């Protein structure tokens, strides 16, 4: 008798919900908790980069390493907060912020030409030459009214990505 959902009390769940702006329902939090425990092989209360990489579908993702810089060593609250950007209930603003933060590697609140180039390199690997990559990026930046030395702030990202919105949703399986 007794299952793992009973390990989270109503208070715990509400606290976690508060932490993620109620992006997930209580049942979804319970599901996420089960998944968290499953991924936390060492039962240390947090998921390390190594444990994330033990999921092959995640390990093959081109952005896995970049994501790991933000998600390494997450406890459950942080885990839920991290995933909340992918909830259907998260606002467009939150989703764009998630992407923006991933670009903004030094956390200064602005994304430089080099930042974008780095992400583009992760995404395309050695299938595009470095010069070609720079050329493509310069070209589209200029067409969108930016220059190579201009840095993009969050408002720019909202302008670029906000219309017609983003499709960035993952369903949490609830049993």
């Amino acid at each position, binding site marked *: *008798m007794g*299952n793992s959902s009973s390990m989270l009390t109503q208070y715990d769940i509400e606290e976690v919900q508060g932490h993620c702006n109620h992006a997930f329902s209580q049942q979804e939090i319970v599901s*996420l908790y089960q*998944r968290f425990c*499953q*991924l936390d*092989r060492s039962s240390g209360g947090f998921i390390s980069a*190594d444990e*994330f*990489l033990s*999921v*092959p*579908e*995640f*390990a*093959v*993702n*081109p*952005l*896995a390493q970049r*994501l790991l810089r933000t998600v390494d060593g997450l406890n459950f609250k942080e885990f839920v907060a991290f*995933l909340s*950007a*992918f909830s259907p209930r998260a606002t467009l603003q939150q*989703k764009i912020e*998630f*992407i923006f933060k*991933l*670009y903004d590697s030094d956390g200064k609140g602005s994304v430089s030409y080099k930042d*974008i180039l780095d*992400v*583009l390199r992760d*995404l*395309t*690997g*050695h*299938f*595009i030459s470095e010069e*070609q990559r720079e050329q*493509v*990026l310069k070209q*589209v*930046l200029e*067409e*969108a009214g*930016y220059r190579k030395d201009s840095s993009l702030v969050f408002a720019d*990202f909202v302008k*670029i*990505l906000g219309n017609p919105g*983003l*499709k*960035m*949703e*993952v369903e*949490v*399986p609830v049993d």
Partner: protein
Amino acid sequence: MSDPGKLNTSSSELDLDRPNIEDYLPSGASIHEPHGQLRLRDLLDISPTLTEAAGAIIDDSFTRCFKSNPPEPWNWNVYLFPLWCCGVVVRYGILFPVRVIVLTIGWIIFLSAYIPVHVLLKGHDKLRKKIERYLVELICSFFVASWTGVVKYHGPRPSMRPKQVFVSNHTSMIDFIVLEQMTPFAVIMQKHPGWVGLLQSTILDSLGCIWFNRSEAKDRETVAKKLRDHVQGSDNNPLLIFPEGTCVNNHYTVMFKKGAFELGCTVCPIAVKYNKIFVDAFWNSRKQSFTMHLLQLMTSWAVVCDVWYLEPQTLKPGETAIEFAERVRDIISVRAGLKKVPWDGYLKYSRPSPKHRELKQQSFAETILRRLEER
């Protein structure tokens, strides 16, 4: 058992074993539906890739293969709960001791016959082999009896002849015991530590079983050679291989290693499906020792399972070993009602090769380049 510090990307040799995994994975190309001019948004919008990553974190097909599923609780109401308590008393207080006694008697009979036969009949190899085979079948029957195995065998019983191998899906080491009680198979298995390893190197050796260590590349060659030698002999026990190379929870099948399928032999598939009504027969070797696993089986009411001996298959003209392996996996999966996943079971012990990531990068790069040309 495995040391996370030692994890490394699998060698290129392992890659040869893989079917085209990209057929199963959602490809980047279909998400970035390419048309029109390339704009800044197309480069900045990394949401499809991120969605894939988050999806894998929330739920992934690989982890699901190795998840032990607890039995459905049924003892929740006031009438059934006392019944369940009685059940516990019977299972642990009566059934378990009786089973331990049965197993002990089995071992006494087995050892008291096996040791003299093994030592005294040194000169008469044929006779000795025959008796030893019989004895191993016997001890396996005792094992099955010790968990009140209710096993239904379907299809013709395997016969002994050269140039054929049997392949089966793998849930627990007890698959081997269940199959062995009917036919003295020679099996290819991971070398285990502890008392299981002792049994492997003494008794099972006489059946012509082959042991290896999956982490040692050198072992792969020796095993391949031993395999080829074994299947040629007419008097050898039929060979049994678990091509998944690891225990899966009996809801899924992971990729089959191609080794068994390139011997040039007839491949006879065997499907094993456990009924989880009393106990989950999946051996989660990360969480449980084999002893604990056996104890769990011995304290349950019964282990119910179905074994199907399926139609022998041969390599079709023009078929590669990998395609052949996938075809046989299909046959087994359909029969036992298992879902197929494209993962190599060895990923439990190593990381996927960078090749798969590169495929995603390639499709994205191609989309960009193509759209650039469209201007």
